[in-house]
């Protein structure tokens, strides 16, 4: 199993541009998450999904959108990139509820200039 795979690993955007961060998992996990990690800080939850077709906001959802059309994929969309969205983004998944062990991808480092 590849686990949780994120693409791209690095990206530079100009203010106002849009992009989609891709995330896929091959563990047949029901729950998937997007976190952002600012320098020297812990992870903040952006959005999560408890299954295909269901998404919910986390702590910091503004400026982002998600979709969950399949169990495997959970893309994160930035519509109008802002410098405040410069961060490292991590996708994660878990089999059961969110209060169980999460498996993380390797991250996407995004800079908005």
């Amino acid at each position, binding site marked *: 199993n590849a686990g*949780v795979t994120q693409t791209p690993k690095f990206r530079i955007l100009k203010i106002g541009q849009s992009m989609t961060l891709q995330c896929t998992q091959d563990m047949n996990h029901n*729950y998937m*998450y997007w*976190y952002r990690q600012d320098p*020297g*800080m*812990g*992870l*903040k*939850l952006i959005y*999560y999904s*408890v299954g295909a077709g269901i998404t*919910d906001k*986390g*702590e910091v959802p503004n400026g982002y959108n998600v979709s969950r059309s399949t169990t495997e994929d959970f893309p994160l969309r930035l519509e109008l990139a802002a410098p405040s969205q410069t961060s490292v983004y*991590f996708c*994660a998944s878990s089999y059961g*509820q*969110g*209060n*169980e*062990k*999460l*498996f*993380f*991808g*390797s*991250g996407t480092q995004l800079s908005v200039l």
Partner: protein
Amino acid sequence: GESVGLHLPTLSVQEGDNSIINCAYSNSASDYFIWYKQESGKGPQFIIDIRSNMDKRQGQRVTVLLNKTVKHLSLQIAATQPGDSAVYFCAESPTGANNLFFGTGTRLTVIP
């Protein structure tokens, strides 16, 4: 929001010594706690977890202690090795929550 914090942002230990990383949490409704290790440029990696019905749980070279009275969590690493150098995060999940709340992390540096 949740408040999960650490007592020390950095910790340096000699190779072979034991390490203790501490974490305070504020939500008495949290019933699940977990420690992650994050190496530079990588995603967090699971180390060990514990539920609130336990006080202690041991893994390979690691032990997690939970003191619910003072809302304190600690990670003990025995015989610390250079490969243990990383940032360690604690996280908590309140009962019924669908996600984890992470602390800011402690950077552990192992001195050869």
